[in-house]
């Protein structure tokens, strides 16, 4: 089979060209005569759709290859090469990246279409679509890169787009601050990524820095270095995928337009960390300790975020914390070396979370940009399509069989249990219950009960078709995606796991049937309990609660933002100000000022001699000459 192809590069290039074209037209016209919105929408959708077609082609080509040699690669050009370091601008499509490709381009395209409706009437729509296309291009570079450095290009690129889109409504200071926060926090993670790459390079990079070479040389890593590399890369992942301690930017990122939240902050970009860990599975598989840490960080994040999610009153914040929580699951999955399970959850999560965000977007759109769930209520009559699709999404998120989320989440929990991580499994089940609770709390409050704001309720209407059609497609995905990886116990063949196998270094645990049933039973029970509590509390006539005690603490997100502000941000600013006001003028500049002062003092002292009479100067000269004469007379003897 021919493994070297030339069309891989076009996949990221198409959206990037789209971004360039859109940006060019937007900048050229925005202050004169803006172009038609339809034009922008149309141009914006071409790139992603073509990329989707190419992604399918990649997928099908791979499918036609023998399982053990399923990859396509393209070495575009030598990017930079210094000494042993040889970085190629190369692309690699293997089962793992092809799976990511397909769903990223699919969901990306759907969200582009949805945005045509959602962003209607925005005067910067050209800019919006340019950013969105740029994001998609970067994401595809991230997925397709055949070495960590190319991946890093996409990695930072999506971070940049995230910043640009969060601060899209840039007239609001808070929005821009949220964007800054996202970029800076991501950069902290990126530092970990860069350092990890550096360690990796000095350890085994001399033999080539693409994934194949790294995988081949991974065995020669010392345990210490391997652990360091794994943990540093994971720091990168926590930044991008919003895990503890760097999760703080994601809830704030909801300041951006809702399609952005769906595409970037739920479906694609935030899963990059999971993808990266899976990509480096050959490293993590060697270092169980690193996996252990990843899994625990993931599950604790899942727990904490679920707690926060239970008390939010902004519809997007609820979904944001649920995203953080689900990402925690994914890390728990890849942490216990169930990489395919983690990736599968990424896959299903992309569908139902995008669906939920777009549904929330439709609600917000209908409620004229009202995001507080306590101002909504009873919307199911007004927006039936949105309601149904969102319920499907919610069921998938909550892990109701047979929706997508059930299978993927169950796979993770089962793997945790089967590999003996009972603690992680137990927390996971607890979080599953909480997920069901807060998801349906949101659904009940928003769509059931009585309208809380009658005027807004009266004006609200179903979203246009350009928005609901993507919702329906995604709902179908959320409903059916789980069956792609149907485990054997339900009579399936785990196609996704088998598909991914060549890309991952994974050992499938073999556990007894009892364990499998226990895992499934616990998940279903948690779901039922969670949804039941939510129904009791919120299905009819729930009022906005007043928080106290622990719930107040949780409502304020354990004051983590304030803590970070107090520990990092304020001292940083204070140091900067202290340097500007005190240290710079009076410490570092001190030697200079001292020297000039010294000259001043000496000069003033010598001023006494400057009487101004020429005669006196002559006297000085003669006195000097005289003294010299005295001295020289000594030497004459």
């Amino acid at each position, binding site marked *: 089979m021919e493994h070297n192809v030339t069309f891989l590069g076009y996949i990221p290039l198409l959206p990037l060209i789209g971004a360039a074209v859109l940006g060019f037209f937007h900048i050229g016209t925005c202050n004169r005569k803006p172009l038609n919105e339809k034009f922008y929408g149309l141009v914006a959708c071409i790139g992603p759709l073509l990329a989707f077609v190419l992604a399918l082609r990649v997928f099908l080509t791979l499918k036609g290859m023998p399982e053990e040699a399923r990859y396509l690669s393209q070495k575009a050009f030598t990017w930079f090469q210094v000494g042993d370091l040889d970085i190629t601008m190369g692309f690699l499509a293997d089962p793992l990246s092809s799976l990511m490709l397909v769903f990223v381009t699919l969901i990306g395209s759907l969200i582009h279409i949805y945005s045509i409706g959602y962003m209607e009437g925005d005067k910067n729509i050209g800019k919006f679509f340019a950013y969105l296309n740029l994001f998609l291009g970067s994401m595809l570079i991230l997925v397709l890169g055949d070495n960590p450095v190319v991946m890093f290009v996409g990695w930072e690129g999506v971070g940049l787009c995230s910043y640009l889109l969060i601060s899209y409504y840039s007239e609001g200071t808070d929005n821009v601050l949220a964007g800054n926060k996202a970029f800076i926090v991501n950069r902290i993670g990126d530092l970990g990524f860069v350092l990890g790459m550096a360690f990796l390079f000095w350890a085994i990079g001399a033999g080539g820095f693409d994934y194949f070479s790294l995988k081949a040389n991974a065995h020669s890593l010392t345990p210490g270095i391997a652990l360091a590399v794994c943990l540093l890369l994971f720091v990168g992942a926590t930044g991008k995928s919003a895990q503890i301690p760097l999760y703080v930017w994601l809830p704030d990122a909801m300041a951006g337009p809702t399609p952005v939240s769906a595409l970037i902050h739920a479906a694609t970009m935030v899963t990059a960390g999971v993808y990266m860990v899976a990509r480096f599975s050959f490293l993590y598989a060697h270092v169980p300790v690193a996996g252990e840490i990843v899994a625990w960080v993931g599950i604790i994040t899942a727990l904490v975020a679920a707690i926060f999610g239970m008390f939010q009153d902004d519809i997007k914040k609820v979904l944001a914390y649920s995203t953080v929580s689900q990402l925690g699951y994914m890390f728990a999955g890849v942490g216990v070396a169930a990489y395919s399970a983690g990736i599968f959850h990424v896959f299903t999560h992309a569908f139902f979370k995008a669906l939920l965000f777009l549904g929330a977007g439709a609600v917000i759109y209908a409620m004229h940009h009202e995001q507080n769930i306590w101002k909504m209520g009873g919307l199911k009559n007004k927006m039936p399509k949105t309601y149904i699709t969102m319920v499907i999404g919610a069921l998938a998120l909550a892990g109701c069989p047979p929706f997508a989320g059930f299978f993927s989440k169950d796979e993770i929990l089962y793997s945790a249990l089967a590999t003996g991580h009972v603690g992680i499994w137990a927390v996971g089940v607890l979080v599953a219950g909480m997920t069901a609770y807060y998801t349906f709390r949101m659904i009940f409050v928003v769509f059931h009960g009585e309208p809380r704001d009658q005027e807004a309720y009266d004006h609200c209407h179903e979203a246009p078709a350009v928005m609901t059609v993507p919702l329906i497609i995604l709902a179908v995905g959320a409903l059916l995606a789980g069956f792609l990886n149907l485990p054997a116990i339900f009579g399936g063949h785990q196609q996704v796991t088998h598909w991914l196998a060549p890309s991952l270094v994974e050992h499938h645990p073999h556990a007894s049937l009892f364990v499998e049933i226990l895992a499934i039973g616990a998940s279903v029970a948690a779901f039922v309990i969670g949804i039941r509590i939510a129904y009791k509390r919120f299905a009819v006539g729930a009022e906005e609660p007043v928080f106290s005690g622990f719930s107040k603490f949780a409502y304020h997100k354990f004051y983590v933002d304030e803590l970070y502000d107090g520990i990092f941000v304020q001292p940083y600013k204070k140091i900067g100000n202290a340097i500007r006001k005190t240290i710079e003028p009076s410490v570092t500049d001190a030697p200079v000022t001292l020297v000039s002062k010294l000259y001043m003092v000496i000069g003033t002292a010598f001023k006494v001699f400057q009487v*101004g009479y020429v*005669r006196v100067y002559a006297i000085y000269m003669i006195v000097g000459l005289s003294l010299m004469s005295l001295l020289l007379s000594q030497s004459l003897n």
Partner: protein
Amino acid sequence: MIQSYLTVSILLFCIGIVGVISRRNVFTVFMSIELMLNAANLAFVTFSRLHETMDGHVLALIVMAVAAAEAALALAVVILLHKHKGQLDTNVFSLLKG
């Protein structure tokens, strides 16, 4: 013999220095400088005699020419100063005071 002439030269030169540094009258100061130049000339001529070459004479000539030039300029300056201040005291001119 040579030492005697040189001693005279030194003596005149020292008297010239004393004149420059002790007197305040511009003319006296100026003439004291001329005296020093003459003392130097005498030394030149003496050395010329010692070595029996005439380069010292040439130098003395040149010194005289310079002295003439200096006299012309210096007197011009003196006239100017007198016009401005009406005085001949060197202490009046203290623009160099720091």
